[in-house]
């Protein structure tokens, strides 16, 4: 090919992977110590969004709620001083607790009575049974595992089992770091964030595949070089693309973070972290994993004819 400068990505892989492991450890420690700030979707309970005509004092509202018989209510501002978010845990884990109580109306009514001269409207309410939450958590974890398994099989068929292992390692790394960040920062983890974790995984996978594709191609083109050299060469070649794609994706995500409103805030954060981590992991988790598994030219035998699917020839 040509004599373009090749960046020695793999030369420092021990250091970078070591640092990554430290991060993973930190994330796991955080899971154990800080745990997660789980959203209503997972814990079950009641959430109300209230609109006050005038700015509301949180302390006062908390007191009012406690007097009305809801002592454990969490009250926070949501976006502005006139928007309040009230959250109640479902303490009776009785599954049919929501059947006849109209807890939302009851709370609004209680607050109205205590502040008769301020208009209060209920803009949103969510009441979720506790066992639903458990199921959603199970479903989420199951979804991640199924995603890993399916991708493993796909990559093994299209590429090579060593790439499968590399890609899945990168995926797990992404998920752990992303969850670790949410645990450490105590950001609320709800269903949309779970969706973002999966989407980020998809993104990272996209990256890993592009890298893998190039490594495979170069293994067929370059005969003399070592595995590390080939991988360095491949990473250098796709570097430009990686930076631009990550950049454009991050760009729109930042727009989403700033203009998408409160509901999508944590979702955007999860994806922003996910894209950064995913880009990193496709370079420094997937590739080193492949090096350590001693990927050789024999792994690509018999070669598949490149571009056989294309029929557009002039």
């Amino acid at each position, binding site marked *: *090919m*040509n004599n373009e400068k090749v960046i020695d990505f793999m030369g420092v892989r021990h250091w970078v992977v070591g640092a990554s492991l430290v991060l993973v450890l930190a994330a796991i420690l955080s899971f154990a110590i800080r745990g997660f700030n789980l959203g209503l979707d997972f814990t079950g309970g009641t959430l109300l969004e209230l609109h006050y005509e005038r700015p509301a004092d949180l302390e006062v509202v908390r007191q009012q709620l406690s007097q009305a018989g809801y002592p454990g209510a969490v009250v926070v501002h949501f976006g502005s001083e006139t928007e309040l978010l009230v959250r109640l845990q479902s303490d009776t884990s009785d599954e049919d*607790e929501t*059947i*006849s109580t*109209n807890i939302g*109306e009851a709370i609004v009514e209680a607050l109205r009575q205590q502040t008769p001269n301020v208009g209060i409207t*209920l*803009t*949103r*309410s*969510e*009441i*979720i*049974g506790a066992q*639903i939450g458990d199921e959603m958590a199970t479903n*989420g974890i199951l*979804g991640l595992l*199924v*995603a890993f398994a*399916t*991708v493993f099989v*796909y990559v093994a068929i299209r590429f090579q089992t060593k790439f499968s292992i590399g890609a899945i390692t990168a995926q797990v790394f992404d998920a752990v770091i992303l969850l670790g960040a949410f645990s450490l920062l105590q950001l609320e983890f709800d*269903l*949309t964030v*779970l*969706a973002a974790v*999966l*989407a980020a995984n*998809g*993104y990272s*996978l*996209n990256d890993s*595949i*592009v890298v893998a*594709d190039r490594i495979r191609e170069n293994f067929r083109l370059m005969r003399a070089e070592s595995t590390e050299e080939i991988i360095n060469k491949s990473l250098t070649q*796709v570097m*430009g693309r990686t930076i*631009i*794609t990550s950049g*454009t*994706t*991050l*760009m*729109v995500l930042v*727009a*989403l973070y*700033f*203009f*998408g*409103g409160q*509901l*999508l805030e944590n*979702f955007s954060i999860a*994806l922003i972290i996910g894209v950064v981590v995913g880009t990193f992991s496709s370079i420094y988790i997937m590739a080193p994993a492949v090096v350590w598994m001693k990927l050789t030219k024999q792994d690509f035998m018999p070669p598949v004819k490149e*571009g056989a*699917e*294309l029929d*557009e020839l*002039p």
Partner: protein
Amino acid sequence: MNRFPLWKNVLLILLVGLGFIYALPNVYSPDPAIQITSNSRAAKIDDELLQVVGTVLQEGGIDYFGAEVTPEGFAMIRLRDAGQQLAAQRAVQTLLDGASYQAEDKRYVVALNRASTTPDWLASLGASPMNLGLDLAGGVHFLLEVDTPKAVADRMEDMQESIKKHIRDKRLFNVEVQVKDRTITITTPSEDAQKVLLTYLQENLPDLARQRGSEGGSFWVKATLENRVIQEIENHAVSQNLTTIRNRVNELGVSEPLVQRQGRNRIVVELPGVQDAAGAKKILGKTANLEFRLEAAPSAPPTQKERFEFYTEEERQMRGPKFLERRRIITGERVINAMAGFDDQSNSPKIDITLDGEGGTLMHHATRNEVGRNMGVLFIDYYTEKQRVMENGQLVEKEVQKVDRKIINLATIRSALGVRFQITGLDSVKEANDVALLLRAGSLAAPMVFVEERTIGPSLGAENISMGVKSVQIGMLMLVVFMLFYYKVFGIVANIVLAMNLVLLTALMSILGATLTMPGIAGIVLTMGMAVDANVLIYSRIKEELKAGLSPQGAIHAGFERAFSSIMDANLTTLIVAFILYAISSGSVKGFAVTLSLGIVTSVFTAIVGTRAIVNVIYGNRNVTKLWI
């Protein structure tokens, strides 16, 4: 080189053109509106009604325009200001709840709606805007859980009763019948009795798997309900309840309700435009059931009969409690319809009941030899009550599920009954109406509980839409500017393709009737960001090939060809993840999975076919010396 055949270009233009037409309705934002529906012919919706409603709205200072009766037969009144929607709804509902509009069973329902502003020529092509999820349209979302174990337990009890009846009919003595979980254990003192019962089970209750044996001089039979049958019962219970909920939702008069089964035993109900969650819950949550039972013979032993009170106060006092057999003939789920009417012959009110086929057979078997006896209809109401109970030494308020069983009708059987029969002996037309209503409402196969409830106010929905649109616009703008500066001529191509992608995605979602949600909008934004990836892959490749010394035309050709496998593999794997997300998620998150999946498909298509076509038009068959890339 680098030319597409003409047909390919034409096809692409046609496709994008079609996409444009079907995406277009989304540009016309709907007017906020209120919608009036009625639940019976007696409650007329006509111009007269519109005028009265108009007057009320004017008095309330609500600015409206374009009040009309739609071809579907409901009134649609468009408002200028979405903020007045709730006020308008309240005002009109108060008016229509008033005495002059309310008669026995006529009722108007006023709901919030969004009136389409799609021009007629577009609508006539079948083009319509995307459905909006509740988080964008506002409304109420419920998740109900069907108590399927109860349905299975009911079936077990039925079978137990029929075995007991057979034991009595055959005059077998000292036979014990016990039910535990899914197994009925019968213990007999003799082998003959065991044989008789086995034959009975084999012939009449084939759903039970039989086992037999003997132990210490007694002979036992164990009959277990097969898993297959349990699944059937569960499926039947859920689909029956689904039908009932659908009927009840129709009574609510919501324009585009969604009633869907979710998972094994849950039902999702989404009511766009509804704000009164409590009211909707009251109508949906009527967890009532019915049972038809024979009145017990006076000589029947206490183990075979149960005592019930009447449903109405009057009858309770006049007729006192009555004994019914424990065995039920059929339950309310078999009732297809019940209509109150007037019997000309006896000059008294009646109810015509229609059962389904199996119900008719069961009813026939049960009544053919019982002419002259009374048959009772039991109304069973499930409700929860707050109770103070001691728990860990503390007095806590707990909700307890309660059951109330009352007789709504007890009448004499005149002849063997079948699929269609009448109940007479009712005191008044009003009573007939009430009982008929209870019969219709009681067709639940198993009780249900609400496990999830979400309400989104209309203003919040509107706010979400504007925020979503804004973030899409800003994200797109940033992308367009960036691509233009970075890739120059090819950047223009990428931007055209990006627009094409957005149009096709919107069109595809509109045609498929997919639901757009807030996370769905985020999915669109994300797809746009990722969609340029395919272009970037191609362009980077072209640049590389140029550096490697290929001619511009050769570089274009090689760039597209070599990038193809990367694009396919990368997007297919992402698509797999998106599918999994679709499978495990529900509600608004599912909307995200939908836009993500469709977005991947459209972006791969536009990048591979669209980009190539445009690049070919610009550079194909020409002597190019330099590429602006």
